[in-house]
């Protein structure tokens, strides 16, 4: 019963936590956009970039998948000040987590692009499209559809990663949770359970949205195995 009383008490801080969580959502938006754009570019370079650009793309992907997220955050936040540049916590976190996510997203997109039968590219080129046109109008629209399930997974992962930005002094939810904890140590447990519940909600609604997108963009007649409960 004591625990529920604590939870009730933390409820007073809920508006503050929710306000702080919008910073997490902004960071999420920024890092997803960076990750999506660069991830798509990296995937295209890996598949179509030829030897030199392809290798560059692979090295990029390898680096950003290998370095721990916290290390990247510190590097992007404290690194620029070595050269006398000030970088805001939000920008540092967006870049660190965005570039990291781009490496993971690139692999989701690369797999999806490679799953498109070569005949699609051939047919587009046979019509007289340039390679870029073929990618834009034929390959990517199909690849992005295929990528949605894998991308949902990456989404669930980076939603949670936004709390790491706490270490570069971004005023996001963890920072406020820590403030509550510092003031009322007895409420620590209840506070972090509240934070956990907020993230359960974020992940759930994000995945629900992506599920809707998957249904919305499903190609009629082409059922993804298992997507609609069909058993093969």
């Amino acid at each position, binding site marked *: 019963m004591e625990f529920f009383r604590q939870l009730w008490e933390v409820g007073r801080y809920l508006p503050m936590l929710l306000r702080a969580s919008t910073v997490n959502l902004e960071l999420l938006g920024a890092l997803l956009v960076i990750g999506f754009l660069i991830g798509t570019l990296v995937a295209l370079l890996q598949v179509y970039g030829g030897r030199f650009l392809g290798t560059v793309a692979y090295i990029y992907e390898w680096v950003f998948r290998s370095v721990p997220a916290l290390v990247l955050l510190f590097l992007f936040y404290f690194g620029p000040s070595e050269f006398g540049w000030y970088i805001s916590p939000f920008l540092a976190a967006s870049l660190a987590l965005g570039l990291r996510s781009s490496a993971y997203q690139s692999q989701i997109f690369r797999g999806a692009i490679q799953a498109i*039968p070569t*005949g*699609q590219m*051939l*047919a*587009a*080129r*046979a*019509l*007289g*499209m*340039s390679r870029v*046109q073929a990618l834009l*109008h*034929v390959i990517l*629209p*199909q690849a992005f*559809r295929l990528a949605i399930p894998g991308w949902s997974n990456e989404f669930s992962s980076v939603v949670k990663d936004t709390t790491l930005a706490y270490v570069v002094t971004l005023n996001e939810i963890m920072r406020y949770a820590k403030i509550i904890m510092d003031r009322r140590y007895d409420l620590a447990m209840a506070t972090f359970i509240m934070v956990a519940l907020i993230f359960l909600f974020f992940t759930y609604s994000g995945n629900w949205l992506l599920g809707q997108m998957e249904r919305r963009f499903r*190609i*009629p*007649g*082409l059922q993804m195995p298992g997507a609609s409960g069909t058993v093969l």
Partner: protein
Amino acid sequence: MNALLVVEDVHKRYGKEEVLKGVSFQVEKGETKVIIGPSGTGKSTLLRCINRLTEPDRGRVWLDGVEVTSPKTNINRIRAQIGFVFQDFNLFTHLTALDNVRLGPMRVKGMKKDEATRLAQEELARVGLADKADAYPAELSGGQQQRVSIARALAMNPKLILFDEPTSALDPELIGEVLQVMIKLAQEGMTMVVVTHEMGFARSVADEIIFMEKGVIVEQGPPAQLFSSPKHPRTAEFLRKITELYGGEG
């Protein structure tokens, strides 16, 4: 150089294997040329060398006086003038039949959307699929898909259409509807080069038949002559085998 298409001494090698060992032929405007021959003799490779979906190692190709194989030629502009119909259709799976047909005119030729839509509807009607404009490829039968892909080629108003075994991936009962469309096109004066095993089609529609084997043209001539009195024993043997397999009228 009056012929619409001139293919001169085309060679292609994959690793050790020389798939095309110097193939030359010409196609006049309005002519239907049928290429026959055993599997793996380079017929499909030859078609792809014509619009450089496969880059020939040697030899030259001209379309309407323009050298296709010249490095200075903008190959995309050449390809826009050459229709290509694939064995396995290769319709864009994420687009409706209508969008498949109007994509080329809009994106390659820069045609306005409403104009391209009208054109696409006309071409779909021409292949008997006016009522399937909103269907996606996966909702169509193989025969219907192949007819959409012919409409897609037609919408570019090509000087020439290349058919790469257009009925080989179809169930037997669906072959007829595709051949009918092709026969109609030939009668309307479309210039076509068709790789096929459909001997009935070859016999009734072709102006000339080319028999290829092991990367070379063994024999060519009008169907009546080639079918009744082939000059080369290999041609005779191939025709006998294929007739046993598919029946006389294919």
